């Protein structure tokens, strides 16, 4: 396949940024999207140009490092996948592909397609944990968690922190990300003791990071590579309201 790429290039936080066209020749349908970019980058280096910078690591959809808007969709076409799991068989010869970084005030562009998502870490530090000290804890089977509850907690805990929910949301809201952690620890008995302070602090930090508000468009759920349901947002809202009284 031969493809035309329109790639966002931006030197640093302060640069305005622009689209630059590249031609990708001999693209195999078995390549992953990132492998296609690898090939383009090798050509760029050999021509003496700087390669397109993007975050990536595990390349199997679990580390949450990669993430780009591909033809206007977070992680590109297909559901339930991160960018690294997108394969070129999803495209056809002659296609034009527009590649942009996540766009959100809370995620400043560091370079090209690489953004700063440390706002997510700061939200997690504001209570995304149980205060279990190392040692001094009961046997694993002393805390019973029936399968449906464990499954529900797992569904929320599957979040990879990639930021697609924020990128897909017209308001750049981080509600699905925050809800996933709050919900995981709200349904588990281990998390209940600190549930009030947790939800209050995490929501306050989310607001401080300048994420937008949730207006129930559900774009986050549609683009989440792990298919995390917006019902967790409902649980976050319930937890938050309950914590005010």
């Amino acid at each position, binding site marked *: 396949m031969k493809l035309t790429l329109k790639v966002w290039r931006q030197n640093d936080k302060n640069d305005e940024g622009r689209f630059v066209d590249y031609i990708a020749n001999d693209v195999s349908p078995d*390549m992953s999207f990132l492998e296609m970019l690898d090939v383009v980058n090798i050509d760029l280096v050999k021509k003496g140009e700087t*390669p397109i910078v993007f975050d990536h*690591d595990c390349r199997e959809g*679990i580390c949450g*490092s990669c993430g780009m808007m591909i033809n206007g969709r977070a992680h590109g076409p297909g559901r339930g996948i991160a960018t690294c799991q997108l394969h070129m068989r999803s495209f056809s010869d002659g296609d034009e592909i527009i590649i942009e970084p996540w766009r959100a005030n809370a995620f400043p562009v*560091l370079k090209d397609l690489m953004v700063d998502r440390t706002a997510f870490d700061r939200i997690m530090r504001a209570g995304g*944990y149980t205060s279990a000290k*190392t040692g001094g804890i009961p046997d694993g089977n002393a805390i019973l968690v029936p399968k449906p509850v464990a499954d529900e*907690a797992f569904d929320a*805990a599957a979040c990879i922190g990639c930021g697609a929910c924020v990128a897909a949301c017209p308001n750049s809201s981080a509600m699905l990300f925050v809800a996933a952690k709050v919900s995981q620890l709200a349904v588990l008995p281990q998390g209940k003791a600190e549930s009030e302070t947790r939800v209050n602090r995490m929501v306050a930090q989310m607001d401080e990071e300048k994420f937008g508000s949730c207006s129930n468009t559900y774009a986050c759920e549609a683009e989440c590579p792990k298919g995390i349901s917006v019902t967790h947002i409902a649980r976050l809202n319930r937890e938050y309201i309950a914590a005010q009284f």
Partner: protein
Amino acid sequence: MLNNEHLKKSMTLNSKIPGGPLEKKWSSHKFNMKLVNPANRRKYKIIVVGTGLAGSSVAATLGELGYNVHSFSFHESPRRAHSIAAQGGINAPKNYSNDGDSVYRLFYDTIKGGDYRAREGNVYRLAEVSGSIIDQCVAQGVPFARDYAGYLDNRSFGGAQVARTFYARGQTGQQLLLGAYSALNRQIDAGTVKFYERREMLDLVLVEGKARGIVARNLINGKIESYTADAVVLATGGYGNAFFLSTNAKASNATAIWRAHKKGAFFANPCYTQIHPTCIPVTGEHQSKLTLMSESLRNDGRVWVPKKKGDTRAAKDIPDNERDYYLERLYPSFGNLVPRDVASRRAKEMCDNGYGVGQSKMAVYLDFADAIKRLGRESVFQKYGNLLDMYKQITGEDPYQAPMRIYPAVHYTMGGLWVDYNLMSTIPGLFVLGEANFSDHGANRLGASALMQGLADGYFIAPYTISDYLASNKFAPVKEDRQEFKEAENTVTGTINKLLGIDGKKSVDEFHREYGKVMWDYVGMGRNKAGLQKALKLLPEIRERFWKEVKITGNAHDINTELEKAQRVADFMELGELIAIDALHREESCGGHFREEYQTEEGEAKRNDKRFAYVAAWEFTGKTAKPKLNKEPLNFEEVHPSQRSYK
């Protein structure tokens, strides 16, 4: 070429394994170790490099104890570390399944699985503390698999005949790392741990013979920064990417341990590399990494090849009596659940002999048809859904309809920096944890034991032994403007400038791929003397060309991913040679190290306990081609080394 001179004058290393009976060693050692008064702990500064399971858990635990902890990662967030990708599970001898498990059995299975090349004392301690890991993770809110009554569920794994593996669907590593990450976050929030994101450690700094700090590059602005400490912990993972294609993440690298090695830390058993039997096969030249399919799939999936050589029929058209379920045939008692090294070698052998399947013929089938018939599609989905989806996503084929094609790939490295029982390297004050050290898996790691070791080291072992080190030594204050730091900064800057100045014509990736191919062909799954000697001729040639012909664009003062890669690849190109030297010197087969000259009549690894029952700890001498061998003899008091049998 290997020069045998150095084998003669080697020193013996002291593993510092405490005396007394096996089951009392750790508890009596804990009592004998010195403690730091809670009020004094904040005066000690500890650097932890890496935030995977071992790094996050040790930083969190040391912070919780009250030490002044500084945690470093080249990632933007601790949660991106590659522990996140571990799939299958974590072992602990809780005996919840009532199938005869015990600490001693886990110890025994691990020693045997490692082909009698690990220390008894370390392995017993690992088995002993592993139960607490499960409890710890449950308390953190890790959503392990449960039954309807709420009890923890277990599954079985390769190399064991009991069900002792705890799991969270096929994403156990992710859930355990997020648990450790949450513990770390709690300490960052509390102010006991300071986290430095996007910093890559490029040198270790020694002052008066002790590890007293690191030099790191800020990957955003390129600044070379010095950090002082009273102790340094490396939890930076393994070196599988020396082979270019592996199941490791793209950025996983050996730079931190390699540069520490060049500063005096011995490198132990580098040739013990693990090839994982169930990975998705290579599709073409563009391949950037290999994807693992969890070994847990072998619980219900059946491995087979056609009985007829070069059979081109589709899997569904091959009747059952024309299929060779070769693992079940060769190993009736362990069947598809033989250890990884055995399963990998048999797959290679089938393909080498012309029974391979798929277009490349370099694959065997892993078939779920029987499991779907027996358990139902829904139940198979519940257990393995995300793994089967992942396969479909990558290959475009549906594993519910046709069997998966799998082939072995480099996955884990049992070798690493040498450490004593206290997890301290040959450099005082330098501790090495998790996959970065060599300590517990011998020549082969059993499935679901990497997560166990990373968290055992981080939560339950290193916090004690580091306290003992701090309490037993005096530390004169050290500042970043000391000469030792300036010298290290200059070395680092010099290397960076040299790389940028080459301006050759080949990219870093192309060199890495070429190097990895030689490693895989001659230092991979099957090794022999001639092949290793050939590798030792080819590898230095590629390295020399790299330093003359590599092309890196951009500069050193902002984000430059090519420059980052180049430094890592430059280090792999030295380490790769050490792997080959070690493999050539070890004239026996054991676990993941398979020398074709040394095998039993049935094609199993044939150890030579008389000559090689020792840990090979290599010392950097200034010349990559001439490392010095030091030996730590392995003493087996409890378990009598025998020919492993999984029949």
